[in-house]
């Protein structure tokens, strides 16, 4: 029944009476809203992931065994388990370079880390990357490990990454050793989300047991160091210092890579993906605008008689324009909300596959920002629909009543 919200009443009834035409408009905006929301979430997630990585990669330079730089990529980006070690005298070589007055590379802090990949076997709860840190020298992981449990990690204790299953207080078994989960890390969007952290004593015990189980020697006498993290003193360029380190250390099977490389690589990929998404959005937006403008123009041309009746009954030009715009806003709203809901469902359902295929750090925006993106996508889509139909609505309001009335 009609009531004082005449614009809304007429729009609702009109939409119901013309399902085919409105289906096309709704579909156009559904696709646009879908891509807008999904694209925005994807871009924000990648941007957050990239920022998180830049924030958490506190090291300026990383020393890894020659030829293993792709492995460090995998560990940092996707958490793919990997085991590799630097030559046993790597730390000594570094100290020699650092103490040589003729070589000024500005090393400020040095901290070794140990990587150990667990097995998909009965000895281990599941395959995962174990990372052992040296509490005395660590300047990267320790601050956020401590923020998770507010104390140092004891021997036999672990902290799990965000995506690793297991709750604090539970026991996980790796290489037949029971390890107590002391805490969980917040999401980082990096490979660290799929890793488990422990101190160097714990990882040394596990490595020995791993050697026994696998029958392969994986450590050396001086301990196991997979990567050495270096922080430079202020004013030193990591690219220049990494170059000098490579000149000194490559012959010993050690390769220096600067952390900015990761961030730069990710920024480059992000900028390409961002351009692709923006391009697709512009094309879809243009199509949506053209389709809606055409459909509304055609529809209003068919409905001249109806417009004439309304004018005869006393609808002013502005009232007629507002009636048509209400109908357009409502149709657009249906398409926009459906598109945004479908996009939200798709993003959540397909997120693991997207992250895996992009091979980039991805950190989903928090709930507040997700809601903001959701509302923005709906708002932009609705305004697109209204703007596209605006000219036709304005023109219909300006048609001569006498001419419109002839179309009864």
């Amino acid at each position, binding site marked *: *029944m*009609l*009531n*004082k919200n*005449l614009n809304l*009443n*007429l729009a609702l*009834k*009109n939409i*119901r*009476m013309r399902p085919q035409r409105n289906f096309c408009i709704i579909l156009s905006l559904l696709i646009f809203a879908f891509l807008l929301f999904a694209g925005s979430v994807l871009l924000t997630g990648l941007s957050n992931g990239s920022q998180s990585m830049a924030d958490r990669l506190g090291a300026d330079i990383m020393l890894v065994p020659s030829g293993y730089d792709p492995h460090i990529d995998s560990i940092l980006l996707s958490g793919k388990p990997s085991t590799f070690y630097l030559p046993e005298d790597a730390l000594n070589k570094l100290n020699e370079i650092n103490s040589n007055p003729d070589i000024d590379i500005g090393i400020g802090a040095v901290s070794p880390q140990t990587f150990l990949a667990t097995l998909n076997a009965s000895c281990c709860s599941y395959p995962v990357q174990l990372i052992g840190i040296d509490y005395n020298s660590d300047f990267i992981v320790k601050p956020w490990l401590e923020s998770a449990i507010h104390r140092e990690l004891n021997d036999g204790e672990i902290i799990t990454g965000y995506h690793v299953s297991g709750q604090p207080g539970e026991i996980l078994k790796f290489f037949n050793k029971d390890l107590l989960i002391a805490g969980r890390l917040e999401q980082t969007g990096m490979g660290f989300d799929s890793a488990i952290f422990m101190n160097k004593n714990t990882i040394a015990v596990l490595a020995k047991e791993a050697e026994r189980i696998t029958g392969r020697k994986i450590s050396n006498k001086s301990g196991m160091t997979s990567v050495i993290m270096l922080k430079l003193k202020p004013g030193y360029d990591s690219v220049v210092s990494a170059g000098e380190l490579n000149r000194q250390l490559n012959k010993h099977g050690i390769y220096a890579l600067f952390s900015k490389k990761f961030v730069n690589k990710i920024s480059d990929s992000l900028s390409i993906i961002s351009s692709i998404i923006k391009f697709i959005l512009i094309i879809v937006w243009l199509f949506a605008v053209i389709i809606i403008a055409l459909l509304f123009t055609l529809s209003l041309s068919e409905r001249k*008689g*109806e417009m*004439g*009746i*309304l*004018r*005869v*009954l*006393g*609808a*002013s*030009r*502005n*009232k007629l324009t507002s009636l048509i715009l209400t109908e357009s806003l409502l149709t657009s709203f249906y398409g926009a909300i459906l598109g945004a809901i479908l996009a939200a469902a798709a993003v959540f359902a397909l997120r693991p596959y997207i992250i895996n295929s992009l091979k980039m750090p991805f950190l989903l925006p928090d709930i507040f920002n997700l809601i903001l993106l959701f509302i923005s996508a709906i708002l932009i889509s609705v305004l697109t629909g209204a703007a596209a139909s605006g000219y036709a609505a304005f023109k219909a309001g300006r048609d*001569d*009543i*006498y001419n419109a*009335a002839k179309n*009864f």
Partner: protein
Amino acid sequence: MALLKLNNISKEYERGGKKFPAVNNASLEINQGDYVNITGRSGSGKSTLLNIAAGMLSPSSGSVELDGELLNFKSDKELSLMRNNKIGFIPQGLAALNYLSVLENILLPFYLYPDKNFGDADGYARILLEKFNIEKLADAYPNELSGGELRRVIIARALINRPKIIIADEPTADLDLENINNIMQIFTKLNEQDGTTLLIVSHDQEALAYGKKLFIMSEGVLSLKN
């Protein structure tokens, strides 16, 4: 004071680069309670004159006064409001919105500018439905109605805002004789029993048997027949 006054109305159109007068210096005064018919051949300018009288078309020259107000120079908003609450216009054809029920079609002019002081519009619409013997069709849709039924719905719609004058353009066109007489009897009753002022344009000879004054329009010139 005349309820509707047309003073020396002329309306020119251009066809093939030449101007021709659709309405030529027409004058007409309609008082409260009048029932005026205008007849004439197709293209004689009757509908043009009616549209000018209802404020839907501007004359090339001359002036229109409705209820003491000059329509010339009024804004679209003012004219629309006046058309809504002072004129009950019955256009040619079966001019109803197909996506609204009969009751909703009748109430449409009221809800364009709802008036708090009007009273129960819904109740009044049902009274009109009963008055025209179509109360059972309240929830039906226009495309489910016969031509005669729909014409009665359109008359009821024209009356919903209790207008000062009903202006009808060919209200009996395309109807059979029985329906023509039904519709014209409704107009007669409205005029005689309720005092409704009527201005009707028709070329149906049967329809012209009703009414108090008859004007003839020929080549844009309006003249009184009786």
